[in-house]
């Protein structure tokens, strides 16, 4: 069985979790197996087809991730059937902070964690642990397709970030 191809969804447009994000990639992407966006889309339609070829989406949840429309758009695209008729991507998420700080979860992700399609983990302690979780997500894209919740409208704009989002 080939290794799942992983697309990483994150909020890379802010400073709060910058160090943690860089640290995450430094620790867990030594083999360059984690892909991430290179161009910021300006509308949901820009993403159609961009996730073809990936098996799993890994959402890195930081302090402002839930506020970002681009995160919602990518999740929406990942949870949609592929153009070639293949299943949606498996989805897992983890806190980018090793203290598991989590003020808010992206709503679309939360709905799928609740349903059992996606799983929300703490930051992994090792690459081995991360790839075990990725493997489970890759299996769920086939075994758990009926659990997908993707009927919410795409987030039209970034949500306001208030000081209740951090402590």
């Amino acid at each position, binding site marked *: 069985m080939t290794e799942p191809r992983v697309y990483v969804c994150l909020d890379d447009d802010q400073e709060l979790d910058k160090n943690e994000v860089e640290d995450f990639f430094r620790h867990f992407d030594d083999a360059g197996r984690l892909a991430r966006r290179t161009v910021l889309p300006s509308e949901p339609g820009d993403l159609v087809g961009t996730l073809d070829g990936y098996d799993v989406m890994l959402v890195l949840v930081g302090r402002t991730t839930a506020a970002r429309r681009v995160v919602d758009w990518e999740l929406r695209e990942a949870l949609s059937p592929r153009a070639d008729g293949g299943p949606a991507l498996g989805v897992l998420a983890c806190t980018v902070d090793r203290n598991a700080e989590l003020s808010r979860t992206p709503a679309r992700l939360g709905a799928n964690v609740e349903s059992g399609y996606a799983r929300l983990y*703490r930051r992994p302690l090792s690459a081995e642990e991360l790839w075990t979780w990725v493997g489970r997500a890759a299996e769920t894209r086939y075994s758990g397709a009926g659990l997908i919740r993707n009927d919410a409208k795409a987030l039209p704009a970034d949500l306001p970030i208030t000081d209740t989002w951090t402590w």
Partner: protein
Amino acid sequence: MYDLKVVNGTVVDGTGAPRLVGDVGVRDGKIVDVGDAPDDARQLVDATGRVVTPGFIDVHTHYDAQVVWDPMLSFSPNHGVTSVVMGNCGIGFAPCRERDREFMMELMTLAEGIPYESLELGLGDWGFETYPQYLDLLERRGVAINVASQVGHHAIKVWAMGEDAQDRFADAAEMREQLELLRAALRVGAAGFSIYNGPAHYGPGGKPVPSRLTTYDQFRQFLQVMSEERKGGIDVNWGPSFNIRTIPELTAEFGVPVNRPQTHTGRQPYTQRNLDASAAFKKGAIWNVQFGIMANSFEVGLEDPFMFAIDQPVGTRRGKPLYDLFHPLTAMTVPERLATYLQPEFRRQFELQTDRDDWNNNYWPLIYISYSPTRPELEGRFLVDLAREFSVSPAGLMLDLSIESDLQARFVIENPQDEDEVERLLNDDAFRIGASDAGAHQGQLADYRYPTYFLGHWVREKEFPLERAIQSMTSMPAASYGMKGRGVLAPGYAADITVHDPDSVASGPLKRVNDLPGGARRLFSDGEGIDYVIVNGSVLLDHGREAVTPDSLPGHVLRDFASRK
């Protein structure tokens, strides 16, 4: 005819009312008369020259396992405590399936510093799995003082998810099961719910404890159940979901009292949080922040270096702990730790990483040697002073003393308080004395003795008003948990009474005793000047001596808490 009468004492009733000289008459475990108690009694307690108060109530303890093997809940009663609240910090042993026992014991060991062997030997065959079975077991075995138990989030999450609870957040089905467990526990007599949202606790494998993996929306679901059941409060550590902004909003929305988090004095961000919490309380937030009157000064050793392995967010500590260096040691055995300390590279890193302004200015000056079997003449000396004398680094000296004593050397990390700020908190109804951690970290911490420290240091030496001091240790903590009929000396209230000598009351000197199951160490301090401890009308301690037999323990398992209106 009374069963018992306390005579000629200075009676402080716990409400904050002025003291009076008089008697207290007791019948059937309840107080019948206060002040003027004219009837004869089968048993007299002479309180001439002594202060008679309600028994003290410690709302932050970890006796959840110890209560099974030690119904005296030592050493709390020695210091005048007659009621405790257990199940704090999200941790407890009920409910717990048989398959999860080892995991939960390891979790308690790592998070609260109770030796695994002591838990294993002390809990024996357990005899319970569900929360109701746990309370029933405690009632069958008996307790010397009154115990109230909160249900801990770790316990119900592990019940629902097994060890996965430490790796991920629950899905909807797993949450439904947890919510039903919480509801069931509240209905059979849980004093509330505790959840851990802070950054300090790690469990097996160095993973964050289960409760830390909880979304904000899941917190809200727990609060919804608490709101529907209308009983109990929530104990919670500071964290992303429970913070200075969200607590007032959440208590307003759900009407559930928040009985913590813990705060400190003399440093940010706590000082600002204290001001904000006080303001929120005055605006109606149902919120009682806890603080430790003794400030949690830990006695630590490199045998168990968890204090150095804490991973705190920036700004919550004066000096950054050495997470990367020490965290791997938390999963090691003691011989493995010793072998690590012997490595030159470890020494080099320890010295390098603590030769920084934050450590040199804020940490090292607070650490002194409390126990050094190989060099006892150094006990009581601060590491920075000795390091200067010996021309070594403080880290190197700590390592040397530890290695040559086979890791038995002990060091106290003082947690200094701003006593002006403490006094402000003591006079502010938003704050509650708590955070004693009684039953936890017993080899490192002895804050269970806070009542005698409070009465000796604050009331006698600093002349803090006696009535307010007693109120803060009796009726105020009772109100936090809706304990019915306790915490006040008044007719109809439970006869939980402490009699102390105001001229001599004090915390006795610390001694290291190896009396936990398996011979593990804990710190013993006697309550000096505590003449009598009376529980539900029975004398439990008479000048420190036990006055009951194992089959006549007078404590109750508290199950009936006031409903919120």
